[in-house]
């Protein structure tokens, strides 16, 4: 009896083995067709293979449906294999055909100061440019195909959802998007690490637009450039000033350059709220910036107007972060540290309407 059972079991095990082998082979075939490096390819697990395949197909559909390439290169778009570069651009690069192309693409990506993300309306990460590795410590193949809601900070999910939806105002503003979200990152200050204890939240400033496609509706997507905050760039410019604020956005410090740019002396700004100094129509912009700071600890404001002393205003943009206002010490870790906001403000325009006194502060006589 038992021998019989044994034999039957052995047969079924063999059959199962064969089935699994066939399946593995197909997975192998599929993985070899994916545009990934061979070293990466060999190590992909089955769900990842499927995920990447889905992404690949989706990107292809998106390009076919959306008019992202213009007429002069559309012939290249139709061939979804190797593409030919534009003659003019070729001259800019070193020799070598495929090499030049790739370098050029790298050039384009480097300009971004971040990486590209394409999201489906359901939040699936359809595509990430391969430089995401540099910023997030996680590779393109590890992240693509997953859903953004699995990676984002739980408090930001609602905001992400709102950005994925088409709103009524989008008709006028071209469905532009500009928001800040937090994503789990594998990068630490010691370099790449996927060890859990050091996984951190990376604050990303995302800008782009929602591409709506009526049919097929699956071709609608959110196209974003994401750059991690704080921005580490060499913005050496004379048209900026640094300021520090308490958490309610009152000035606690301001550097001297503000005098040249806005006319106020640092002393007269202390204790003043930034909301007093801006144009009334920009209240929403500043509020959003402030909320981002409170929630996510970093923010880039969109452009708003700051009133100049004596009359008129300038357009500015602020990059801010919440920092502890005293040096962090280990012993105080658990206690509540005072926080403050550090702001770098870039003045974008000249003084507009210099003779116009819009705010009561501007009317105060010296």
């Amino acid at each position: 009896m038992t021998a019989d059972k044994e034999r039957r079991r052995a047969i079924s095990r063999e059959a199962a083995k064969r089935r699994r082998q066939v399946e593995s082979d197909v997975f192998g075939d599929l993985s070899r067709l994916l545009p990934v490096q061979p070293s990466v390819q060999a190590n992909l697990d089955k769900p990842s293979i499927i995920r990447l395949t889905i992404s690949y197909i989706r990107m292809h559909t998106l390009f076919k449906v959306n008019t992202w390439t213009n007429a002069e290169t559309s012939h290249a778009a139709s061939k979804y294999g190797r593409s030919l570069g534009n003659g003019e651009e070729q001259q800019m690069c070193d020799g070598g055909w495929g090499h030049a192309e790739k370098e050029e693409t790298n050039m384009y990506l480097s300009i971004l100061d971040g990486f590209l993300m394409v999201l489906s309306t359901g939040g699936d990460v359809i595509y990430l440019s391969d430089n995401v590795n540099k910023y997030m410590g996680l590779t393109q193949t590890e992240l693509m195909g997953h859903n953004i809601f699995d990676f984002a900070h739980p408090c930001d999910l609602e905001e992400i959802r709102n950005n994925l939806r088409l709103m009524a105002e989008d008709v006028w503003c071209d469905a532009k998007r500009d928001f800040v979200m937090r994503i789990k990152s594998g990068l630490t200050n010691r370099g790449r690490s996927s060890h859990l204890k050091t996984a951190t939240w990376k604050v990303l400033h995302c800008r782009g637009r929602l591409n709506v496609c009526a049919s097929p509706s699956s071709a609608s997507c959110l196209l974003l450039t994401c750059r991690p905050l704080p921005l580490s760039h060499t913005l050496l410019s004379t048209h900026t000033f640094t300021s520090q604020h308490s958490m309610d956005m009152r000035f606690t410090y301001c550097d001297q350059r503000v005098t040249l740019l806005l006319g106020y002396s640092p002393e007269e700004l202390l204790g003043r709220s930034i909301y007093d100094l801006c144009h009334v129509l920009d209240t929403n912009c500043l509020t959003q910036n402030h909320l981002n700071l409170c929630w996510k600890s970093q923010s880039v404001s969109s452009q708003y107007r700051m009133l100049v002393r004596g009359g008129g205003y300038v357009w500015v943009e602020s990059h801010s972060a919440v920092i502890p206002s005293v040096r962090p010490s280990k012993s105080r870790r658990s206690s509540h540290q005072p926080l403050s906001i550090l702001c770098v403000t870039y003045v974008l325009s000249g003084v507009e309407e210099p003779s116009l006194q819009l705010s009561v502060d501007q009317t105060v006589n010296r």
Partner: protein
Amino acid sequence: MSVRDTLAGGGDRAGGGEPTEDLLVEENQSSCMSLSSLMTASSVAGSSMSTEMPRKRKGSMENQDSRSASIPDVDMEDDQNGSDGDDQHVKMKCIREPHSQIEKRRRDKMNHLIDKLSAMIPTCNPLSRKLDKLTVLRMAVQHLKSLKGSSSSFSEAHYKPSFIPNEELKHLVIKAADGFLFVVGCDRGKIVFVSESVTKILNYSRAELIGQSLFDYIHPKDMGKVKEQLSASELYPRERLIDAKTGLQVQADLPVGGARLCSGARRSFFCRMKYNKISVKVEEKEFQASSSKKKESQKYCTVHCTGYMRSWPTSQLGAEGEGEADKQDSSHFSCLVAVGRVHSHSSPQVNGEVKVKSTEFTTRYAMDGKFTFVDQRATTILGYLPQELLGTSCYEYFHQDDLPHLADRHRKVLRSKEKIETNFYKFKTKYGSFVTLQSQWFSFVNPWTKEVEYIVSTNTVIAQASRSGNKSEQSSNSKTSEEDGKKSLPIIPGISTTPGSMIYAGSIGTQIANELLDFNRMNSSPSSGNVSPFSLPLDKSPQIHNQISNNVPNGEATDVEMPGKSSSEDEPQGAAFSGGETLMAHLSSGENSQLDLDSVVGPGLSSLSNDEAAMAVIMSLLETDTNLSDAVDFEEMHWSL
């Protein structure tokens, strides 16, 4: 939800005590420890996203529908999951969940993926019955082969495969960046390349721009700034680094000038660029009373340029290079490669061509109703220049009949988070006549302190024609509101249109503001427990009080003592405050009282002399062990956006 929570949740699933179970279990354990554990706990379900590079997975992740999970799977390869010694204790913890659950989740996930895949493949779709896994996979293989076309490609050494062909990716970048790419030579500013998208943005064609000097298209006042960004020879004295730990300035070692020009050095700046306006009609009304007539002058829009420096050996450039005119000392062609993005506030489409409603203007009031900000559009409507209104109380301009109603609204808006609409009311213009307005007020609350900072009012002019229809309504309104006004508003004796007696009207606003302050003070608990929602208002109200006084440049006494006002007047209004009380509680409920709102300036930070150093400080502070998301529990804050 911090990362540590996730670890705890994920850790529960992996691990195992029995050696035979180890194989199954170890996989899950590794999936806990790798990327999947970075996801939120709810979504880890069945996810086998273990794509750690060194772990070979092929063939080891089997979903066997026909087998139950409890049978040890002797066929499973589990080579590399081997004993990470330090993970043993994690494995122990993970046994809490039955393996069948884990397996089931993994199967479900796989099935879900297969379904998604079949939805993507055109040949799968028309078939109504659900296809089995193998078939779907085979069809996927076919489909990918067809997409790839004839190129066999992946064998080439140089070829670096990517999900999107390079050409498409470049376009995608431009599209996502929403701007135009340009390359300019550093010494002359010659535009060597610009992408097609510039036409949409600046309205110049590529041909017009290529070969021209960038400086021809930049606003004169910004030329210096742009030159500074393109050139790199001077040493910048401000480039000092600050060691965040000690707050001391540290000399940078490498020669700054050299670093700036080398390839890869980033640039980011704003400048105003010309754009080509086609249509000429300037037909809108002039809204700014003080600005001069609009000349047919050059229009500029603000462009944000970000990119980096690149340098090519001139030998490679052929005709396109700078070779002809200037044989520089260096044989390298340095240029800036950047993308230019226009900001909507000053984009050609928006600037001056959007019809601004000439019947609307916005103002800001202090809590007591005094104008602190007046939008320039007010002048054409009211006749006053903004500076003539600033500092004066809005009540001085409201028609007598509307005072009670507006005072009531004023009270409401200070206690409410919503926008409050007024009825139609009359506002006195400079010339003595009245214009009918309707306003929407909301009190702007500081997101951090939850205190009202000021009131924003959007005011719309109501066309004269409808005035007659509303006039009777309005007068009856004012009568009824006087009747059932439960507020003991002092009757203003003898209000006339002469400015002299308006001082009494002005006091209404102040009184209303003071009511709020008194209410706050009365209700704040002296014990100042951190939990009390009113403890913060107690601290802040003196500030607000000062703010109000500061906003009155003409020295009118705004403090508590006002003629006719006594504390007894406030008491009967307790009924009105009950609604306010709940609103105040609502306003302060989300306060995270754990934070000490100390506004001490950090020692090292006052010495910051440039923004780059500031950024360096930010970066280093944020990268230290202080993880802010731990210090503050954001879950408790109920911000409403």
